[in-house]
């Protein structure tokens, strides 16, 4: 390898940092052109671990069973803000079967640092103590024996109240440019819209969970996480160990959706209790704990004012967001859609991160941008109404090819094609006919919304490929496949480049042991980060294989090609199974390693799309049904259309639920969530699903390294709620001041 360090920009959910990355100059494979004839890439392939997942044999963290393993249970704060008066640790330790207890006074072994637990809880559900015992029943008995007594302190759960009292998790952010106030005053047409968006819970069906087992000063941790390497590094820092002393295993993860970052409280507490007892410890959240302390998309109060000329060209954007942060966390880019979706020189953007007595908000699929789009794209429709202009036409007139913040061009953008295709698939030209009175008494409408998200990925990301004498390859990656199908994507890309059948390529992920780094499964970055590394590694193996084939067949390697497991010469004289070459390897292997190259200079990488929803509203019952949803997203090249459509359907459904049913309701008097259970927090079931129609421009981004794909996890959730709310407004002529569109809210709005 010819190594050098380069400085590049790395993006994660809209945050940029400049990092040094190691680049191998031999990683210079060119992107397959859009019309390349590919055997496997772009063709539907069932996921490689589908059978294991469908048979009940997939071992999730909650399924790990080790000899002598203890089970931990957590005592959590029952109040939004309080002060622990007494906690009877001795009584808990005296409970039969209890082996160890940690409480607010405890410090971590080895480093004696990082208190995990607090004596003054700041939100309902905050951990106060953890008990490890022989059985879960004994652990729960130990928790009861703690006989918690606490003083209740005043709380704030209303974000507006927090702002009035100047309670912030950080400084309010002003991301304005130009002079929006003056531009608004000078605009020919103006509108103003205020909408509240709900706190939405990720609800992975496998809750946060960890199992920790020590062997001397080496720790093995099974963690239900989206980021096994960050989990490893956090555990190393907490216990003062080298990274190599820790192995994190995460073969199967029962959903994350952003909530499962790093080691989490669960892995740290399990590791500490395992250290104290000398036995493996498992800690699994129960559902109520998961819903109070697993994380959430923060509720927001947003106001958007728009100004435009009579011609529909935007002249001013003013947007404000109050974000109910809870105790902290990143302030996600709620106003990014307002700042970047359309051309506008004068933009006001103020974000207030309100500190409330709730758990710190965390990532949930397209954090910030989704809830920002849900309001901003409704405001765009209000402007279309004020201008008496077709909403899609208004969006087309304000289309941009350069990023409005940096002034740099996009690396690729097929948004106009997405508009056209979505309009065609949705029957947009019959939009007004839908509103005619219907025999079933329902009010129908069509609404659209535009999507912007990042999803370009970047370095660092690595892969190795090893080909054996049977002509079979194993690809080692740093992927944790949380259900996205990215391991299968790596199989497809490696098999394509190697010229092998899919079934001859195995992919390893979910284990930090091999120390082949991959990024956290978040920010829609796995496919664009990992696939180029996989292809580079496979390309090196292919090159060596063809050189060896040249030796075997006594022909120049450049006259040979390989596909579907056969090596052929261009003149047709040679047509041999790959094992005729690899069979001579004996116990040797052909190895290659690859790295993700840097992102292109001078471009901004984003994904784009358009969704159009058709809704039917029952004006008597207040019920809103989404009948059909068209989703067209530009995410570069599609590696596997089968799993890609699964990502779109999943994102759309979570967006639909945000629009219609999901909301964590908090009792203002106690500050405690009142619907922290799956039977009163309504996630969609099979009966709630609309017809979902999917298409893509499917053109590779030639400015991205060697595969030309962008990420797809987040884009589909971004525009769904706005499209549904716009369809509701189209159907009814009313626009509710808050989401979700529950029956009560709909009836109030229509009254």
């Amino acid at each position, binding site marked *: 390898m010819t190594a050098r360090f380069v400085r590049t920009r790395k993006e994660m959910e809209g945050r940029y940092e400049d990092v040094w990355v190691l680049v191998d100059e031999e990683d210079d494979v060119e992107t397959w052109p859009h019309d390349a004839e590919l055997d496997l890439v772009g063709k539907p392939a*069932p*996921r490689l*671990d*589908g*059978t*294991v*997942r*469908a*048979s*009940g*044999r*997939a*071992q*999730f963290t*909650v*399924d790990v*069973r080790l000899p002598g393993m203890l089970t931990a249970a957590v005592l959590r704060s029952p109040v939004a803000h309080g002060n622990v008066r007494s906690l009877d640790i001795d009584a808990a330790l005296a409970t039969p079967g209890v082996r160890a207890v940690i409480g607010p006074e405890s410090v971590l072994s080895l480093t004696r640092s990082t208190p995990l637990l607090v004596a003054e809880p700041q939100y309902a559900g905050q951990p106060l103590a953890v008990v490890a015992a022989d*059985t*879960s*029943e004994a652990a729960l008995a130990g928790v009861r024996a703690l006989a918690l007594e606490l003083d209740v302190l005043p709380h704030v759960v209303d974000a507006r109240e927090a702002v009035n009292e100047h309670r912030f998790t950080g400084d309010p952010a002003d991301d304005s440019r130009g002079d929006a106030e003056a531009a608004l005053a000078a605009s020919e047409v103006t509108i103003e819209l205020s909408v509240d968006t709900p706190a939405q819970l990720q*609800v*992975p*069906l*496998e*809750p946060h969970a960890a199992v920790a087992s020590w062997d001397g000063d080496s720790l093995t941790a099974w963690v239900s996480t989206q980021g096994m390497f960050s989990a490893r590094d956090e555990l190393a820092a907490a216990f003062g160990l080298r990274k190599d002393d820790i192995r994190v295993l995460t073969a*199967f*993860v*029962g*959903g994350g*959706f952003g909530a499962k970052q790093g080691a989490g409280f669960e892995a740290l507490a399990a590791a500490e209790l395992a250290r104290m007892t000398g036995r493996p410890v498992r800690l*699994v959240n*129960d*559902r109520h704990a998961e819903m109070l302390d697993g994380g959430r998309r923060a509720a927001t109060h947003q106001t958007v004012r728009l100004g435009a000329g009579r011609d529909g060209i935007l002249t001013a954007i003013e947007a404000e967001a109050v974000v109910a942060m809870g105790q902290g966390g990143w302030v996600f880019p709620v106003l990014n859609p307002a700042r970047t979706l359309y051309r506008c020189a004068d933009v006001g953007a103020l974000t207030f991160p309100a500190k409330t007595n709730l758990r710190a908000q965390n990532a949930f699929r397209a954090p910030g941008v989704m809830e920002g789009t849900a309001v901003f794209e409704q405001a765009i429709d209000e402007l279309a109404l004020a201008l008496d202009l077709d909403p899609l036409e208004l969006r087309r007139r304000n289309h941009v090819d350069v990023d409005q913040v940096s002034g740099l061009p996009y690396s690729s953008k097929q948004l106009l094609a997405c508009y056209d295709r979505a309009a065609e698939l949705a029957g947009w030209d019959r939009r007004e006919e839908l509103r005619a009175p219907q025999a079933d008494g329902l009010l129908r409408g069509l609404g659209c919304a535009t999507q912007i998200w990042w999803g370009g990925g970047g370095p660092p990301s690595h892969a190795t490929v090893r080909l054996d004498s049977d002509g079979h390859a194993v690809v080692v990656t740093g992927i944790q496949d*949380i*259900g*996205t*199908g990215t391991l299968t994507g790596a199989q497809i890309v490696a098999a394509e480049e190697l010229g092998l059948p899919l079934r001859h390529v195995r992919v390893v992920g979910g284990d930090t042991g091999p120390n082949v780094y991959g990024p956290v499964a978040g920010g829609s970055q796995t496919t664009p980060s990992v696939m180029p590394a996989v292809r580079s590694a496979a390309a090196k193996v292919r090159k060596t294989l063809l050189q060896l084939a040249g030796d075997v067949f006594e022909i120049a390697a450049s006259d040979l090609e390989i596909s579907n497991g056969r090596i052929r010469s261009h003149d047709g004289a040679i047509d041999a199974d790959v094992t005729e070459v690899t069979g001579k390897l004996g116990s040797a292997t052909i190895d290659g390693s690859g790295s993700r190259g840097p992102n292109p200079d001078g471009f901004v990488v984003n994904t784009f799309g358009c969704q159009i929803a058709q809704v039917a509203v029952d004006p008597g019952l207040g019920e809103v049904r989404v009948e059909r949803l068209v989703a067209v997203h530009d995410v570069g090249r599609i590696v596997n259309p*089968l*799993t890609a*459509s*699964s990502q779109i*359907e*999943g*994102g*759309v*459904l*979570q967006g639909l639920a945000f629009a219609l049913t999901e909301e964590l309701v908090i009792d203002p008097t106690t500050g405690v969530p009142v619907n922290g*259970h*799956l*039977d009163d927090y309504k*996630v*969609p*079931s*099979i*009966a709630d*699903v609309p017809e*979902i129609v999917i298409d893509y421009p499917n053109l590779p981004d030639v400015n991205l390294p060697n595969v030309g794909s962008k990420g797809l996890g987040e884009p589909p959730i971004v525009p769904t709620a706005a499209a549904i709310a716009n369809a509701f407004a189209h159907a009814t002529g009313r626009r509710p001041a808050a989401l979700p569109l529950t029956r009560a809210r709909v009836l109030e709005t229509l009254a």
Partner: protein
Amino acid sequence: MVELRVNCQLYEVEPFGRRLLAVLRDDLELLGAKLACGEGACGACAVLLDGRPVNACLLLAEAASGHEIVTIEGLSAGRAASVQEAFVAEDAVQCGFCTPGQIVSATALLERVPHPTREEIHEAMAGNICRCGTYTKIERAILRAAGAA
């Protein structure tokens, strides 16, 4: 001690007032059925009790004695195999955590109604939550398995 008949085998278990799911997972190490909500609201713990899907997280283990219990591990042949194949072929599996419960419910549906309509599928499967949102493909997989059966 009570006797439980699980996947055609007899087990003597001490229920200690626990739910069937706890006995299956903790005592018998049958780990296919999952504890996801513990509230009977998601179906990840579905097993068959005399051929009908039940939420094992709610049913007391003692109450299951005297009945025929089948878990995902016992559903390997015949119709269940075609359901599993259809789930994989249609990509009705994302993270896979709810999948054992989905397969149990889908197999029970097809035993009862070999050629279900969309409405019958929605009715039978509405108690099985999939947070990844594979529902469109679950419906397609069940229709596919019905065609193959």
